[in-house]
């Protein structure tokens, strides 16, 4: 088990739980919190390009890289494999 990773380091289809959101003066953490991205929320990365798209709880959210980098995620070990197998597992 490794430590929390920023969302930008994840592969598409990786899922886990938000550990914390970096708080600074940019107001990023507040804007993410407004959409439910706070510590404890379940999160799944859907897409990395051209912007990051992820699902948090039941909401699909698109953010640019700087914002995605502020989200620190503890990745679920059992949902790590390649996207194709993840897709099969979910059904």
């Amino acid at each position, binding site marked *: 088990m490794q430590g929390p990773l920023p969302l930008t380091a994840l592969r598409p289809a990786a899922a886990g739980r938000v550990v914390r959101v970096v708080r600074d003066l940019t107001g990023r953490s507040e804007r993410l*919190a407004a959409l*439910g991205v706070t510590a404890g929320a379940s999160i799944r990365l859907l897409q990395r390009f051209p912007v990051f798209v992820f699902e948090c*709880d039941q909401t699909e*959210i698109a953010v640019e890289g700087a914002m995605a980098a502020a989200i620190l995620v503890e990745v679920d070990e059992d949902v790590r494999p390649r996207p194709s197998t993840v897709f099969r597992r979910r059904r």
Partner: protein
Amino acid sequence: MPCSGAGVCDRTRLRADVAPLLQLRARPLRIALVGNPNVGKSVLFQRLTGKYATVSNYPGTTVALTKSRAVIGAEVCDVVDTPGINLLEGPLTEDERVTREVLGQGGADLVVQVCDARNLRRALMLTSQLADLGLPMVLVLNMTDEARLRGVAVDAAQLSERLHIPVVETVAPEGRGLPELRAALPLAARPRAAHACGIEHGAWAGTMASQVRRIQPVPTGRFQEWLGRAVRQPLTGIPILAIVLYLTYLIVGVFGAQTLVGLLEDGLFGQYLNPVAVALVSAIPFTFVREFLTGEYGLVTMGLTYAFAIVLPVVATFFLVFGFLEDSGYIPRLAVFSDRLFRAMGLNGKAVLPMVLGLGCDTMATMTTRILGTPKERVIAITLLALGVPCSAQLAAIMGILGGISFSALLTLFGVVLSQMLIVGFLAARALPGDRSEFILELPPLRLPRLSNLVTKTVVRIRWYLGEAVPLFLIGTALLFVLDRAGALAALIQMARPVVTGALGLPSETAPVFVMGFLRRDYGAAGLFSMAESGALSGAQAVVALTVMTLFVPCVANLLMIIRERGARTGLAILAAVTVIALGAGTALNFGLKLLQVTF
């Protein structure tokens, strides 16, 4: 929970206070519908009051307050529909501030919080903050049908028990749960939330949600899942966008602008209405009056024909297609592709919402820029809307004229307009003080639009267009007639000749059309349409004239809205800049086309 007993007592006491149906009040009870964006507040508002409020499937449809009277029980209430809000504290956009002000300044006596049953945790975070206001509340779990499909089940009774407020499950578009909501309103109470338990909002919401909600992973419809992924990934999303644009062109540009316009203009007006009007009017002994009604600048032959035969068919077909796209949830997904492009212009992907809405009406879209994060972004977006985004009525004329000439003519016009927008945006991003905000946008679920909402929305918009545009068309026509009679038109044409004929290379009769274009761009464009039809404009001239017209400020209403939103100084600066750019680009295009000997 040790506190629950006291809370229940509290509620019974409150119920005794509120229960009498008739109460003496200085003013009607004010009920505010509050909730996260895109949870269905406006649908509920319609259901409660019977008054129409625009409903779509993206956050930010409502950016201002809508009020209406409703009778609930035996009491007359004022119901207020508010823009969606996620948090009461922290950085807010201007539409969110509207809501906070209503709540903070005593604009509501009772709060009905509407939430999307799937997103309970987020909703409860807001509930917890609303609780601090100390107003009686009712919680509405809306979209319970969709939640169930996604395997989300919320125990409403238990939630009500814990919050000490009524919790009602609804499916607003079908009116399910509405009687229960009406019955629950008199029982509204002050909720117990984070502060009552002495913990932080987020932690409280997380715990509460996990206690009353069960999520069973269900496979969503394969097609829906596939489509959701396909529209936001570049490899598939961009071809899909191309198909959507092409279908829109077929419906609006070909069916609306050519088939329907042909039927109405040559058929209904050309063969029946106008000859009948001329025959009727010929009984009037005064030439002046006859000319006023059916002459070259006649109210019927010009004003009504333009409004109903040329613009209406395109506007109507456009509103229909546009409504479909709005309700499907597709438009916000365009932000995913356009974020980088908008970043170069000092904006972010979220700006795609006002830009696309501008294709419906620039004036409304100017108001929608409230959803953007910073004042700088709003000024840039408003300028780009005024400069380059043609509204539906104007698209009508563009499609009608250039569709008849050639596809390359259309491409030239949009190419020039888009490049102007890019250049202006790029320069404004660097010249204006202030910052851009980082891109973050909620993507609403993709849905098959409801036919009833689509029809209502289109009808309301057409009625709005008729109410807004037709009077101005008639005033414009009357003004032209008076100017013509007073000889001022000839003088004006003379004055504008160096610009119109010299720089833009257009026939001098285009001058009065441009004057009308100042009143409303679509009216001017309709004028160009009839000039092009009568063969007064060559292909290249039509492209130049329409490009200049598109780049002008859309209409008087839009200018007034810009001034209202951003102040007179900014408004006039935008007007001046846009006019100079329009004429400059038109001149360059004219000489460019001549140099390359393009005729279309």
